[in-house]
């Protein structure tokens, strides 16, 4: 859990730091400033996203896909996603395409395979960027309320709130349990080839540490459910009135409509222009 500065090289265990996760969590949840997309109603954003998540699969026109990509790329940029997320995405997409290309060469593929794969990569890029643009800038609670309003069960939205509540506590506890094992256990004397003994030791610890964690969490959960009973949650779960009350702050405003209309116009334009480049 301990943060270490550059003065000494952080070990594997130190990189896994409670504080780091807490920091990340807070930054994700409330750290982001207002972005362009986070202003809109979550339901509108979910609908908007659904279009970009489904339609590209059925478009084989590269010009159209590029047009869509341009739009989502600009919006992604406006939502200031973390660099890390983008790097992970880039590595994933490129390496996946590369493997397929290399393996297809073994089966006699060539330029045609590369061309076809580039279309696929383009589609995946549009879809993934759309999800980053929309969801990385949306407050998780608003998102869960949005999902609630389109029919997700109350448990889900409860889970999101509960996740925020419990995450730091659970990580801290897991971390302390790991230390309990380490402070009473013994790490391997020899590291082994490529440190495999250490690897096995770390793996074993990370799994067995769940044993006390499961028991502790079970004990905790019992009180929590009693409290939920007292707070009326188990009744409210099925009460449409409560849901309405909870979601009453969600309102579709004029700017939501304008945004949808502009998006539709843009997409129509892209399709129209794309029809000239039917590749």
């Amino acid at each position, binding site marked *: *859990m*301990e*943060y*270490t*500065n550059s*003065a*000494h090289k952080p070990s594997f265990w*130190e990189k896994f*730091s409670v*504080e*780091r996760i807490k*920091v990340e969590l*807070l930054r994700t*949840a409330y*750290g982001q400033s207002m972005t362009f997309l986070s202003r809109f109603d979550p339901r509108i954003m979910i609908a908007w996203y659904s279009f970009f998540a489904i339609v590209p699969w059925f478009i084989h026109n590269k010009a159209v896909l590029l047009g869509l990509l341009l739009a989502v790329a600009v919006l992604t940029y406006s939502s200031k996603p973390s660099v890390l997320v983008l790097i992970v995405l880039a590595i994933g997409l490129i390496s996946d395409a590369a493997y397929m290309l290399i393996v297809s060469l073994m089966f006699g593929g060539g330029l045609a395979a590369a061309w076809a794969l580039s279309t696929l990569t383009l589609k995946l890029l549009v879809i993934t960027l759309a999800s980053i643009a929309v969801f990385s800038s949306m407050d998780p*609670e608003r998102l869960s309320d949005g999902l609630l309003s389109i029919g997700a069960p109350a448990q889900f939205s*409860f889970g999101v*709130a*509960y996740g*925020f*509540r419990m*995450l*730091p*506590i659970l990580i801290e*506890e897991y971390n*302390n349990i790991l*230390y*309990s*094992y*380490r*402070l*009473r*256990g*013994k*790490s391997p004397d020899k590291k082994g080839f490529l440190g495999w003994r250490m690897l096995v030791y770390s793996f074993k610890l990370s799994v*067995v*540490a769940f*044993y*006390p964690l499961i*028991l*502790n969490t079970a004990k*905790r*959960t019992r*009180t*929590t459910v*009693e*409290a*939920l*009973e*007292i*707070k*009326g*949650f*188990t*009744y*409210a779960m099925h009460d449409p*009135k*409560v849901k309405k*009350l*909870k979601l009453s702050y969600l309102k579709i405003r004029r700017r939501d409509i304008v945004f949808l209309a502009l998006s539709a116009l843009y997409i129509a334009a892209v399709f129209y222009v794309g029809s000239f480049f039917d590749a």
Partner: protein
Amino acid sequence: MTSSVQAEHNQSIIIDVQDVSFRYPGAESNSLSEVNLQIKRGDFVAIIGSNGSGKSTLCKCLNGLIPTYYTGDFAGKVVVNGVDTSQASIAELSKHVAYVFQDFENQLVRPTVFDELAFAPLNFGYEDYKERALQALHMLDMAELKQRWIWQLSGGQKHMTALAAAMALDPEIIIVDEPVAQLDPAHAKLIYDKLALLNERHGKTIIVIEHHTEFIADYCKSVVLLDRGGKVRWTRPTQQALSSVAELTELHIQPPQVTQAFAALHADSRSGNGLYPVTIEQAVEQLQPLLAHRGHRPMSEQHQDHDERHTAHLPYQDNGAQLTAHASCLDHDERHQARPLHPSTNESAQRDNQSRAGREPLVHVEAATSGYQSIERNMSPTLKGIDLAIYPGERVALIGNNGAGKSTLLRLIAGIRKPWSGAVTVCGQDTRKVTPEQLSDVVSFIFQNPEEMFIADHIRADIEFFLKARKQSNTEPFIEHILQTFHLTELQQRDGRLLSGGQQRRATLAIGMAMKPTIMLLDEPTASLDIVSRREMTQLFDELQDHVQAIIVATHDMQLVADWATRVIVMHEGTIIMDTTSADVFQHPQLLDKAALVPPQIVQLSHALKLPSAALSVNQFVEQFRDKEEQDGIYQLSAQA
């Protein structure tokens, strides 16, 4: 703060428990047997009784968890604010009864304070749920916490949030299960102040389950004593209840130290109606004429003078630092006037250096800085350039408020945190160069939460874990010895999580001992323990001393400091502000106040009485008082009141 017992007339009965018996499913005996109890509207009641007397069970009958949620053999009738609990749902009853669990952290289910407060009213479908939440926020004067994340709150703030969340439904009755057990004394006092506020300003009926009679004396109006097996022995007004010293002691309930002292000093010091003082104020009130008689200046004058003296000498004291009205601040013997900080530490350091000359320190912390990364990814140090040496034979208490850096320091010594700069050397090993596993051959670290230490199937396996991991053979007799020392032989096959608080602490001590450490580190070892278990822990610490070269304890428990420690280190905001002995530390009320620490009641009382040196226990107090009596002539305690 004092809630004098007011004879309020025309009080209606708000809780009526009639012939209630209850047995948990599968239990062998009743947890409650034919309980009859009436509580008046607007009362502030403490429920006391030894472990297993059914205190929590009784309270769960009041909020309907029994018999609706817990099935079992239930008989009798409970009427709460006009509602028969067997006829209403639990949710319905929570409009009448607020309940704060003993493990209140687990009853908080939402991410932020305001969200938590609005949750129940929202679930009940109240249109004005936000207003209700705000109202609860204001009722408890905690508006500044509104947008805070629950997990960032201190224990006391979480407790307050749990209370406020229950208050959002505006119930008439508030039940709080052992607030002091889970909180440090300063926070516990805060919670009680809030309860008093709700009681006095808003007319709420308050019920607390409480072991700590000093809080009962300060806040409660009446006391219900439960006997083993869940029977009500009596209900009495607070002073009368707590003056029953013999009866309470027999049931392992410790009356306030003031009351004990008076009882021990003079049986005839009882005032006409057979009562002892139960608060420091009452004790001082009885003794003040006596002190005045001895030619001392009036107290109020001394107080002011005292105040100036401290601010003048202590440069680190914030301007306008408030003195609380503790009796400890009322008076100070000239001999004990607080010395300026630096001379004090230097003095003691010199003294210590002489006695330690030629000895190697076990732990050597040199200019160590460490801390956490803040939300803005800045480094925020919790320890700022600490220098410290711990020598063999020392019993060190680390005290200070939350966030002072006590836990960080312990973790540095245990090697599970490395200093950003500076160095920590433990038994000659630089902690940056060894793994925690290697360091654990000489250091054992007992976590604050025992449940995080139960990693094996049962506590015997937990105790053996260290030796087995090192493949030591023939450990059987040693393990048996440990089990015996810590009274765990009977419990060895049980899972630690299913033990009582005191048993859990004993088990963690045993785990630490079985590592045959040179140095033992304990983080809040007496937190959430009742008084009997606390005393037992202090005795076990003496046991440890024979096997371990040095013990370092981070604690809020001033009684432990008084009873056990030989060296006390006061920390504040990542630095050491005092390093002294336990007898001396209580001579610095400002310093303690700054670190949000409350000295034991008996220390406060001996300050008020100008005893030659602060008594650290009731027995010491009694001895000193008698000595003084002989010197100064006879104190006619019985002449008072």
